[in-house]
C-alpha cells in the first residue's frame, strides 16, 4: 500500500470516535489501491487500524461491494430487481453477456470488465438501471450496451 493510501486511512480514522468505524472506508481505499482485497491487502488494513485480521476479513466478506478476488478495471452492475425486471433488464443483461463474453460474477480475460447483477440500485425511475464504476446509466436498451461499454478503456 502506498504512503498516500496509509495517510488517507489515518485521515479516515480521525472522522470517528472509535477507530473501527473507519474500517469500511479503509477497505475501499485498499481495494481501490490493490484492485481487490487480497489476503495481503486485508492484512495491511488490519495493521493500520490495529484490528485482528480475522475481524477485518469477516467484515469484508459480509458486504457485496468488497471484492476478495481480483476484479476488472471497470465493474458493471446491472440491476435485476423488480422495477428493472418489469422494464426489460433481462435483455440488457443478456446483451452485456454477449458483448463481454462472460456471465455475471465473471471478469473478462483481459481484466477490463467484471459483470455483476445488482439488487435495487435506487434508480427505478430510470429502469433498467446500470451502474458502471461510479456512473449511473438510465433507461438502458440492449442496443446501448456496446457504445456504453466502449467508453470504458
Amino acid at each position, binding site marked *: 500500500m502506498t504512503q498516500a493510501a496509509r495517510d488517507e486511512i489515518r485521515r479516515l480514522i480521525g472522522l470517528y470516535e472509535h477507530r473501527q468505524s473507519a474500517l469500511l472506508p479503509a*477497505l*475501499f481505499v485498499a481495494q481501490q489501491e490493490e484492485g481487490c482485497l487480497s489476503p495481503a491487502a486485508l492484512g495491511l488494513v488490519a495493521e493500520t487500524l490495529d484490528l485482528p485480521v480475522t475481524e477485518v476479513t469477516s467484515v469484508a466478506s459480509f458486504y457485496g461491494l468488497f471484492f476478495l478476488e481480483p476484479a476488472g478495471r471497470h465493474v458493471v452492475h446491472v440491476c435485476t*430487481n423488480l422495477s428493472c425486471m418489469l422494464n426489460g433488464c433481462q435483455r440488457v443483461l443478456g446483451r452485456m453477456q454477449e458483448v463481454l463474453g462472460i456471465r455475471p460474477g465473471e471478469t473478462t480475460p483481459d481484466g477490463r470488465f467484471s459483470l455483476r447483477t445488482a439488487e*435495487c440500485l435506487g434508480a427505478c425511475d430510470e429502469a433498467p438501471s446500470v451502474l458502471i464504476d461510479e*456512473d449511473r446509466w438510465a433507461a438502458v436498451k440492449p442496443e446501448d450496451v456496446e457504445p456504453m461499454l466502449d467508453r470504458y478503456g
Partner: protein
Amino acid sequence: MTIEAAVPESVLLRWARAEGMAQIEQYRRAGGYDAARRAATEMTADQVIEIVAASGLRGKGGAGFPTAQKWKFIPRAGPVKYVVVNGDEGEPGTFKDRTLIEGCPHLLVEGTLIAAVTIGARRAYIYLRREYHRARRLLEAAIAQARQAGFVGERIFGSEHTVEIVVHTGAGAYIAGEETALLESLEGRRAMPRQRPPFPAQAGLYQRPTLVQNVETLCHLPVIISLGPDRYKALGPPALFSVSGAVNRPGVYEAPLGISLRSLIFGHAGGMPPGRRFKAAFPGGISSVFLTEADLDVKMDHDSLRQAGTMLGSAAVIVVDDSLDMVEVMARAVEFYRDESCGKCTPCREGTAWIAQVLERILCGRGRVEDLALIESIAAGMTGTCFCPLGESVPPGLVASLRLFRGEYERRIAQGEARAV
C-alpha cells in the same frame, strides 16, 4: 374511482426540482437555512419538539414511528449523543431519498442540523448507501459550503451549538437499512441487527443515546418549521411516493398522505404503458404485501394500508403488469431476501433459501403439486420467529400470492408435469 389532481403546492419536491439547489447561495436566497438558524438561535428544544409533534410527522423510512416521540426518548442530560441519518435507501422500488439529496443536498444538511441542535448532539453521521455516488459527492460539497458559511462546525449560526456532520458510506448490504444493523455497520462490523431493547435512543452508536432518522424525515423539518405545523398539515400532510415498474411516468411524486393508490398510478404516474394490463401493485416496496385491482381505491396512509393487510413502508409503489406471473415476481423477491439475509437467525437464513429453491424448481418446470403446501409450511415456520423485519416480511406477500394467484402456480406445475410425461 376519481383521480385526484396533483397536490396544489409542492413544498418538498419544489426544493429538489429547482435549479441550482446544490449551491448554498441559491438555497439561501430561497429561504434555506432560516429554519435551522431559528432552531439554533431562537427556539428552545421544547419548542422545536412541540412543532414537530403538532405536524404529526412520522418516520419515512418504513416503520412510520412518530418523530417527536422518538426525540422525547433521547435523554436530555448526557454529554455525548448522536444523530445518525439513515440514507441506506435499499428497499426495492424506493428512490425518494436519492432524489432529495441529488436535487437539494442542503435540505438534508439543514434537517440534520435541526435534529442535532434539538436533541443536543454535537455530531451527526450520514450513512449513505455506497451506490449513491452522485448523491455522496453533492452532499459532501454541500456540507463543505455550509461549514464555510458557519452553519456546520463550531458555534453554528453564532450560537452555542457545535454540530459536525460526517458522510459515511455503506458497502452493499440491504440489511444495513435496519437501524440497529446500520449502527453495527457504522461501528465497522458486519451489518447484523442488534437485540432491542436497548433502543438506539438509549444505547445506539458506541452505546450512546442516538437518534436514527431517515433522509426524507429530516428533509421535512425545515419545511415544517418555516410553514408552521398547521399549514404543513393542511397540505395533506405532504409525502413523497416513489412510483415505478409498469407505468408511463415513473418518478417521485409529492402528494397528500392518504391519496388513493389509483390516483398515484393512473394520475401522477400516467397509468400503464400501451398494451399492458394492471395485475398488482406493492404499496410500500417489495417488503409490503401487494394489492390487486380491487384495492386500487385504498388510501395511501399508515392506518388505511394496515387495515388493507399491508403497509405504507417507504411509500414505494411498484406496479406489476401481466408480463410477469406472480410466481416470477415472488421468486425474484424471495431470491432477494435470500441473498440479503444477514444469516444471524436460522428461520430467515434457511427459510429464504428453502423457499427460493422451491420457487426456482417450479419456475424450471420441475414443480410438484405438494410444493405449494411446502412453501406455506416454511412460511408459517418463519412467521414470528425471525430476529428482524427482513425475514418477517417474506411470508405475508408469499402467502397472499398463493391465495390470490394460486392458479398461476398450479399452471406452471401442471405444464412442468405435462412436459415430464
